[in-house]
């Protein structure tokens, strides 16, 4: 028991140090690293509490997905565009202080009301063992008692995904590029300069040349003389197919 307690305090200490690092670091990537450290230690604490499923999910979801995305976005964004973290803004500091104190009060109230050990729920070691382990028990509870909550969460996440896709729709880079391409084509061959000649409706049949299926579902044209396909390139007709 003493070893467990010792390990717990060690993990808790690192978790808190990591959390402090999140706030203190000037570099947002360093903040993210601190957060990961904190999450991993919390996961280890779950393990001590014999909640191995929760621990692994904590690692997969928070350390493995959420923070990776945070780092991803941070790396994509230009450093100048990041918000100022450490400026002296009295309003922000005050808001943070109030919120922090509120959280502290809430947690204190909870501890004061129920004690450090909390109130034991219906699940004890024996009942968990009867079901067949922590993971199984958690699954049963989640998909029976909390079914509505699960469904609502799923719906919320779906809405968030759709919203994110709608918001992040690339502003038509391709359209801007298409405009640029048209200007770029310097036509010496056409007196009007930039106009692209319209392709003819039909091309003359290959005279001596032949069409060969070259693979990949692509035909190529084999020209035997230099004056085939000179009126119009071989291109248009096959493009249309």
């Amino acid at each position, binding site marked *: 028991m003493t070893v467990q307690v010792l390990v717990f305090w060690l993990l808790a200490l690192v978790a808190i140090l990591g959390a402090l690092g999140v706030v203190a670091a000037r*570099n947002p*990537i*360093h903040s993210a*690293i601190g957060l*990961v450290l904190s999450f*991993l230690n919390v996961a280890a604490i779950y393990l001590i509490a014999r909640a*191995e*499923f929760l621990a*692994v*999910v904590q*690692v*997969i979801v928070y*350390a*493995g*997905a959420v923070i*990776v*995305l945070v*780092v*991803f976005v941070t*790396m*994509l964004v230009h450093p100048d565009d990041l918000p100022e973290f450490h400026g002296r803004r009295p309003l922000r500091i005050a808001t943070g202080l109030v919120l922090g104190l509120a959280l502290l009060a809430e947690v204190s109230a909870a501890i004061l009301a129920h004690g450090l050990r909390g109130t034991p729920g219906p699940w004890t070691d024996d009942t968990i063992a009867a079901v067949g*382990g*922590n*993971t199984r028990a958690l699954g049963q509870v989640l998909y029976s008692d909390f079914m509505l909550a699960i469904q609502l969460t799923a719906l919320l996440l779906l809405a968030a995904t759709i919203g994110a896709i709608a918001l992040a729709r690339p502003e038509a880079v391709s359209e801007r590029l298409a405009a640029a391409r048209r200007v770029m084509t310097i036509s010496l061959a056409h007196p009007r300069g930039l106009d692209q000649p319209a392709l003819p409706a039909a091309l003359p049949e290959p005279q001596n040349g032949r069409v060969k299926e070259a693979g990949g579902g692509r035909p190529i044209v084999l020209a035997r003389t230099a004056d085939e396909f000179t009126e119009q390139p071989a291109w248009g007709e096959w493009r249309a197919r």
Partner: protein
Amino acid sequence: MEWQRLIVSYIVGFVLLNVLLGLMAYMTWFERRVLARMQHRVGPNRTGPFGLLQPIADGIKLLAKEDIVPANADRLVFLVAPLLSFALAPLGAAVIPFGDTLHLFGIDIPLLVADINVAVLYVLALGSVGVYGIILGGYASGNRYSLLGALRSTAQVISYELVLGLSLVGVLILSGSLSLQDILREQQRSLVLGPLTLPNWYILSQPLAFALFLIAAVAETNRAPFDLPEAETELVAGYFTEYSGFRFSFYFLAEYINMIVVSLLAATLFLGGIDGPIADGVWWLAIKALFFLFFYVWLRATLPRFRYDQLMGLAWKVLLPLALLNIALTGLVRLWGIGAL
């Protein structure tokens, strides 16, 4: 007794780690020889018989190289990132059963380091944390090629982690457990199909999941044709462009350990692991894993590389729906099997 079990576990883990590191060194030799044969070359053949001492020579060379930190690198992160990658890689092997319990000196020695009851999730979690070595290394190098490599890698690992996880759900539904030991035990039963009696390997009942797992595993280990994070013809070397000496080799070796671990996992999850037609044992696992390792090298010799958007499209538009379909089908079959439909 608790202590005894713990110590046995440590000893098994220590042996396993060393075996794994040796295997990884010879995996580089294996890959170079096989690749060379596929390309009408000879491969390393000068250092020792058949070039067998080549990995050692490489190791000495890399150790002796200068460890360069670029001027505009994020120094601490730069130094730690490859260690992170390397340290996390072999952990996955801890949950893979290498055989039944061994009786030695009156002690029961289970031939696996840790029988975790969430072993499958544990491996997935390791994979998702392992990406930090890549992303932090790429970020800390202060190089744009590294940054692009890291960005590609992040997107790739997140996407394919999802496919990997979902492809395993079918297996989990059939076995009803997250423990690799249980999954293995389920596969040791026999599957009776009319006149045929086959082993209950999940490759037979979950072929789609197996294919998805294989594709996702290749992508997860950043191997060809999904080696975009380190695509040498585009990004020079991707996230480890700026690394040199042994820190470079940490990334390199982590990749090879990951390959071995994923191969072992695939053999355990889908091919019955240590189960074989005659004389069950660790050699069957080795043969199956070797097949996957050969497959990796084969892919690298044959296929061109995907483009970034095609890679993401494949994951999200093809593999993910297929994985979901597989889950739905397996679930239905399972429900029908227990008479709930």
